[in-house]
């Protein structure tokens, strides 16, 4: 019967695509593989229990098998979020983007050097292809020209916006007081605080460049493509800005 064959083929095709999607997701990280092998092992034990008709354990595994998929999903939620963020990173790439002028670069550099000398914590993100609208929508919109004075003022301690991040698009400060999802990278030094983790977090899910100024030491770090680089000399910041913003 051709109708059944076509139906079966469509079913097979959809299941195959879904299984391929799941397989690619599961094999994308060691953590996911480890979690999945443990859950598969529990399923294998349950099939042995059912095959041997072990009565008490069968009742127990009835519950386990019922709740296991839900537990699995809860355990892999952070990985799912990361996968969605990475997909979003590819999806939200704009064809055209504007980068700041030499003047803007100079203003950012001067502000960062000043903040670093004053040991004032700061988090400045410069947008590239991936839009940061989802973060700026929840922050305080400024849409003002980039200036050293304004940046210093935003990060002045005990002011309402000093704790969040500033997002710069082209020659404009889009917003201040933006909050990012913190990176879960285990390689980050324990001495680095949540500001560094936030900078690293946004660099993992977008192609932006984030400048982090440490409150404790005044050190300047750059977060880009999931890597955090501590600058030994502040002058190097200008090289990074010139390379990134050209």
């Amino acid at each position, binding site marked *: 019967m051709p109708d059944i064959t076509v139906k079966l083929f469509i079913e*097979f095709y959809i299941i*195959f695509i879904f*299984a*391929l999607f*799941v397989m*690619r997701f599961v*094999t994308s*990280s060691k953590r996911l593989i*480890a979690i999945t*092998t443990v859950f598969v092992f529990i399923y294998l034990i349950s099939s042995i229990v059912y095959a041997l008709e072990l009565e008490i354990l069968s009742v127990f595994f009835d519950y386990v098998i019922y709740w296991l998929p839900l537990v699995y999903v809860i355990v892999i939620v952070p990985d799912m979020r990361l996968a969605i963020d990475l997909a979003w990173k590819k999806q939200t790439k704009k064809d055209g983007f504007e980068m700041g002028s030499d003047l803007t670069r100079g203003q950012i550099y001067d502000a960062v050097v000043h903040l670093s000398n004053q040991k004032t914590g700061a988090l400045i993100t410069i947008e590239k292809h991936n839009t940061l609208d989802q973060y700026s929508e929840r922050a305080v919109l400024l849409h003002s020209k980039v200036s050293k004075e304004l940046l210093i003022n935003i990060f002045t301690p005990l002011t309402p916006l000093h704790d969040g991040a500033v997002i710069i698009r082209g020659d404009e400060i889009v917003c201040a007081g933006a909050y990012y999802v913190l990176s879960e990278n285990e390689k980050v030094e324990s001495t680095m605080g949540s500001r560094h983790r936030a900078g690293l977090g946004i660099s993992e899910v977008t192609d932006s460049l984030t400048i982090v100024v440490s409150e404790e030491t005044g050190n300047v770090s750059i977060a880009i493509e999931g890597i955090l680089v501590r600058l030994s000399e502040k002058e190097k910041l200008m090289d990074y800005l010139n390379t990134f913003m050209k």
Partner: protein
Amino acid sequence: MKKILTILFLPFRVLAGNQVSGILFNVFRKYPWLNVVFALMIAVAVIVFFPRG
């Protein structure tokens, strides 16, 4: 008691450990077509074994 618990949980510790997941991760990274093979196997298994009304 600690030793007994260690032995009891050994299979889980091995499976969730770095070695097994590391080997599998490297194998799947080296041969990405294995994903397609496993997906095909899953699809065939579902079609063959899934209970129908």
